[in-house]
């Protein structure tokens, strides 16, 4: 075994022999990598295929695009096909139009004479290429840009409000002694038991009564008072020494200034973790937006995607591309901030 592979496959065992558990480990890890990344990669690869190619079976691994050629006498470029003649030889012809099971074709070199070809006898001429129009067209024509903006708005606003209100509450619960503090804490613990799916009907009624139906604020407000966020921040603020606050009070700082200028900056690591979580949560939210938003122009990406996927004639080439765009922020979080999240989960058990 080379030095490099010895380095990579460093094993538990002490000798040079491979223990069976080492084999299991590497099968599991490599198989796991394929299984975890594979489906998403397959989606990305598929999102660059045109509609005709998506309908094919068996599917190709790589996206191909039809080769076209500019033929004299025709305005648009025509698609090229390999046509098998009766004698078995093949020629490359351009298709003008298709009528039933036969196609009207033309030789690019002699554009004046038309040839009728049975479509059984021709195969499209293709090269590896990306159908980028899957991405461009929904952006230009569909409501996709609107959905994207709605999702960004909900995510950013909900995260900002979550950070502000949760940190204020956490400050009061960690740094003040007042009557009823334990009762408030208990109340917050109790709401951990009330996931949104349990209060859908009355919450809808409240949102309806406050006039927030079909408004992005109706999506934002019910989600921002997360007990998890208050918990996380309170635990962190408990570690900030009270002497610091006392010293500031000596210098005639107001309580608001103490919160804003001293406690918030010191709690930045916990705030960062909550911010990352909040962004992922709000970006991914589905059931509640699905209920509150019934007008198309208010849809978030997740609701919009579901609507497109539920149509009678599913336009997979658009949906796949939109799914990839929906994945982008989360993939960025994964690549750059994954460490914060994993330590957050391992430390506090939140999700």
């Amino acid at each position, binding site marked *: 075994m080379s030095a490099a592979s010895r380095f990579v496959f460093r094993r538990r065992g002490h000798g040079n022999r491979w223990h069976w558990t080492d084999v299991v480990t590497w099968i599991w890890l490599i198989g796991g990598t394929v299984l975890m990344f594979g489906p998403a990669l397959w989606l990305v690869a598929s999102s660059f295929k045109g509609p005709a190619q998506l309908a094919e079976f068996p599917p190709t691994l790589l996206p191909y695009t039809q080769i076209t050629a500019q033929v004299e006498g025709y305005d648009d470029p025509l698609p090229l096909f390999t046509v098998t003649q009766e004698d078995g030889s093949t020629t490359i012809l351009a298709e003008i139009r298709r009528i039933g099971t036969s196609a009207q074709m033309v030789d690019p070199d002699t554009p004046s004479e038309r040839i009728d070809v049975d479509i059984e006898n021709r195969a499209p001429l293709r090269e590896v290429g990306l159908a980028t129009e899957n991405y461009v067209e929904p952006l230009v024509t569909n409501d996709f840009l609107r959905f994207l903006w709605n999702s960004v708005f909900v995510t950013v606003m909900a995260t900002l409000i979550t950070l502000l209100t949760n940190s*204020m509450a956490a400050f009061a619960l960690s740094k003040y002694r007042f009557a009823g503090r334990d009762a408030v804490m208990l109340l917050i613990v109790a*709401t951990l038991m009330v996931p949104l799916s349990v209060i859908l009907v009355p919450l809808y009624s*409240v949102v309806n009564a406050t006039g927030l139906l079909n408004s992005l604020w109706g999506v934002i407000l019910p989600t921002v*008072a997360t007990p998890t966020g208050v918990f996380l921040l309170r635990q962190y603020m408990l570690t900030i020494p009270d002497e610091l606050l006392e010293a500031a009070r000596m210098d005639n700082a107001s309580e608001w200034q103490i919160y804003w200028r001293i406690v918030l900056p010191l709690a930045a690591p916990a705030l960062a973790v909550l911010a990352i979580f909040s962004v992922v949560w709000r970006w991914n939210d*589905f059931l509640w937006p699905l209920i509150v938003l019934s007008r198309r122009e208010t849809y978030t990406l997740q609701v919009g995607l579901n609507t497109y996927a539920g149509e009678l004639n599913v336009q997979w080439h658009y949906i796949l591309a939109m799914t990839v765009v929906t994945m982008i922020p989360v993939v960025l979080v994964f690549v750059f901030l994954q460490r914060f999240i994993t330590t957050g989960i391992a430390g506090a058990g939140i999700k």
Partner: protein
Amino acid sequence: MAAIPRTLGAIVTAPLTWIARAIDPPLRWWQRLTGLNGMAAVFLLPNLAIFGVFVLFPLVLNVVYSMTAGTNILLGDRSFVGLDQYQRLLTCEDYTQAITCREDMFWTAAGNTFFFVVLQVSMMILVSTITALILNRNIRGRGFFRAVFFFPVLLSPVVVGLIWRWILQRQGLLNLIMVNLGMEPEVWLNDRAYAFTATIGVSVWAHMGFYTLILLAGLQAIPKDLYEAAEMDGTPPARVFWRITLPLLGPNLAVVLVLALIRGVQIFDEVYVLTGGGPGTSTLYLTQYIYEVGFASILRNPGLAAAASILMGLVLVVLTLVQLGLSRRNEQRGSRQ
């Protein structure tokens, strides 16, 4: 390069700082008037107000809704019917046959959810325990592989549903593999058993990374000297696993079990996108039942949906209490060490 994010940060925080400075004088006046207790109220107010309006009040309102009938969501237009909705949900001629129940869809959904939760949670624990054990070994690139298994956790349920719907469809990747192995292609999601299995597999795929992390943290908290002592005594590895690793991982396994149960009972998003509850009712689970009865169907019945959600909520309350009890015990154990 670092100057750009800093400038951007300043642009975002500048107005916030300005607002914070502007509200300081009135708050200072309030502080002089009411003292620290008054300030505590100020800090708590925004969060508790939102809490009250959007969580606590609906919680109470849910009970009211569950005792009314009608298709209108406005409470004024609904009639009080007492416990009729619960009676409707819970009446069956033969409790082993969902079809004999007055509200057969509820029982179908409850039964489906039960089998789903049992199978999904056992799969989840098995797979994430094995993964955690493997990631806990002395392997190169542990951080990378930990991230690999965590990746699907971040994906939105809608994206997860679409990814797998695309793979399981007629011209999908799975059928490509089937054909290459010389087997017949299938329309997986049109088959009741396959669709049910798919919802289990997909949700395990999407969430196992989360539980793996909790178990991995538990494994890493096991003192190394225990293993060293076992090695010195020449204890066989299997015995080390059953006598040291598993008992000491027990508390974490219990937390994972309850968390997975709580999530499993509420399963909705990825299944709704993947199968829409079908084919037929083979993947109809409780949350989708509540959603459809309360909002989506033409003959919607918010009272019935509220009653069903309260029944589901009771199960969740019990599970959450168990979880809180468990994590408190773990904390105490941790502080004693």
